[in-house]
């Protein structure tokens, strides 16, 4: 008996019990749909993050105090006091490979505007921040060297801060807000960065103002620098490292007491964690796929028992053990593949539904193929035992079965 014949028999048998067949596949349908939708969600989030990070600019380098493994720099932020403000201020003049330098000090503070208030991260930095971080403005502009030199009480609002303090999208430039009860004039509002790291919940002000008014710390938490035009990241990093090591009087062989991270490192870390997140989602979803497979096995066992007499008849008419096995295996695979097909459709539909709610979801071909392949594999795996039970039946006993 060939495969086409087996398929014909399987389809006839399944059609004879349409409702049960459909209900049996439901588990696989839901499993496959869940895997596809979950992976789409995970992949969408991953792409969002990539896009957001790419927006920050590609020639950006970060230096943080203290030792940290490459890519783990976020954990080290602010943890050590090895990068004095005065040193950061000299980088631009003494390291020619570097074009812009934006050291950052930060702390949280209570912010008020009228009756509205909130707790936000306040960043003190230099005017270079504007181009080092490729800032874009919703309203107004960044502060200047004059503001820095004059220690003026001016600030730039992150998008989320603006939304919070000016809930009706009001004009903020020129308005006075209070940070720790000290009045500041708003110079501008940054556009939305979105995504990772709560980049929008920030208020940026001149470093000098920050140190005088909020926190007279002598050490920076982070320095963001950009390589000069025509100098690649690695060269800029090497030059800056050499310069910093000399400033810190580190002997050859002694480890750095600061760490670097490039945009790419951050991208890698974030991608790694979102990849794990995606796998986790897929893992949870595939549990339902396995449950669906068990459902198929259950029904196939029932089917084999119900059709014991049919098996006896077929054996009497010349079916070999493997013909019967193939017949029932084909049935379970047809069930699971059919369920897989429906599941793919449902999964894609769900992903689109999620998209229409504003979340990013991306259905990749590989996730569709994987889920569909798993469904077929589950049909074989969970159909094998019932099928081999069917094949083993003794023809006489099977014929006598009532």
């Amino acid at each position, binding site marked *: 008996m060939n495969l086409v014949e087996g398929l014909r*028999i399987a389809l006839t048998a399944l059609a004879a019990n349409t409702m049960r067949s459909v209900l049996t596949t439901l588990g696989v349908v839901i499993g496959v749909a869940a895997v596809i939708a979950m992976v789409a969600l995970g992949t969408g989030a991953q792409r969002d993050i990539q896009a957001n990070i790419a927006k920050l600019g590609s020639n950006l380098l970060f230096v943080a105090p203290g030792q940290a493994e490459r890519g783990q720099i976020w954990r080290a932020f602010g943890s050590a006091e090895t990068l004095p403000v005065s040193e950061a201020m000299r980088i631009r003049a003494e390291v020619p490979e570097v074009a812009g330098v934006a050291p950052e000090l930060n702390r949280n503070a209570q912010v008020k505007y009228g009756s509205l208030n909130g707790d936000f991260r306040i960043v003190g930095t230099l005017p270079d921040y504007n181009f080092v971080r490729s800032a874009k403005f919703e309203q107004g502009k960044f502060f200047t060297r004059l503001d820095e030199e004059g220690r003026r009480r001016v600030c730039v609002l992150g998008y989320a801060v603006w939304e919070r303090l000016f809930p009706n999208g009001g004009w903020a430039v020129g308005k006075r807000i209070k940070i720790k009860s000290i009045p500041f004039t708003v110079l501008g509002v940054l556009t939305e960065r979105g995504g990772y790291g709560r980049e929008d919940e920030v208020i940026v002000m001149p470093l000098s103002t920050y140190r005088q008014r909020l926190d007279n710390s002598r050490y920076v938490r982070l320095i963001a620098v950009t390589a000069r035009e025509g100098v690649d990241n690695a060269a800029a990093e090497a030059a800056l490292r050499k310069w910093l090591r000399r400033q810190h009087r580190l002997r050859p062989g002694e480890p750095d007491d600061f760490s670097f991270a490039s945009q790419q490192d951050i991208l890698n870390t974030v991608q790694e964690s979102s990849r794990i997140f995606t796998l986790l989602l897929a893992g949870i979803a595939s549990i339902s796929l396995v449950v669906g497979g068990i459902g198929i096995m259950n029904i196939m066992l029932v089917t084999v028992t119900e059709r014991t007499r049919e098996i006896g*008849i077929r054996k009497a008419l010349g079916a070999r053990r493997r013909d019967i096995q193939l017949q029932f295996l084909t049935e379970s695979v047809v069930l699971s593949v059919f369920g897989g097909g429906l599941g793919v459709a449902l999964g894609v539909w769900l992903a689109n539904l999620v998209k229409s709610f504003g979340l990013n979801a991306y259905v990749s071909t590989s996730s569709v193929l994987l889920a569909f392949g798993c469904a077929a594999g589950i049909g074989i795996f969970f159909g094998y035992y019932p099928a081999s039970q069917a094949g083993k039946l003794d023809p006489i006993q099977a014929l006598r079965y009532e």
Partner: protein
Amino acid sequence: MSESPVTAARATLELRGISKIYDTGAERVAALGGIDLTVQRGEFVSVMGPSGSGKSTLMNILGCLDRPTDGQYFLDGEDVATFEDDALARVRNRKIGFVFQSYNLLPRTTALQNVTVPLKYAGVAHDEQLRRASAALALVGLSDRAHHKPNEMSGGQQQRVAVARALVNNAAIILADEPTGNLDTRTSEEIMGLLQQLNDQGVTIAMVTHEEDIARHCRRIVRFRDGHIEHDEPVGDRRILAPRREG
């Protein structure tokens, strides 16, 4: 008793010292106690005997559905008692057609589809399956019921479908265990007429029956008692039925 190469030319079925013992744990039942039986090509044998005398056990062994506990069974000269399961399945498919008391058609499956089943396991192409199944249904006079399902047919019609299925793969032997057991007299005669017709065309037939009237349609009667052959004689006053052709 001659050696098998010689008998192979003459005999279709040959049993030598066949015994079948059922060991249920509690007791050992000797369903067949060392049977010698030869059925020549083209014979039409009726097996009779009281209930429990071993008739069905014999038919199952003849049909390669079951293996004897001891003894040799030559089918066309081959000792099939030594065959593997798959080889036995092949023998059932190519040489033997079964007709059961309870018809044993596949439910929810049309007459035509039922008749194609042996052809599927013989690897016959789909179109050819339908052609031969239609021809077999025509032979039993059921062309107009080809697309009816078993529950839409009378017992006699179902049994004729079963006969069509038994002969569709050109079986040389038809084994029938009480084929008329569930049928009334008129329908029983229909089936017997059909079997006579097939036998006239050279098909070897062995059937079990309880009724002397039915057995009289055959050429030879083998009587069983307690797993042994008690009598084995040709039918003296054989009843010949004119072949019926109807729908």
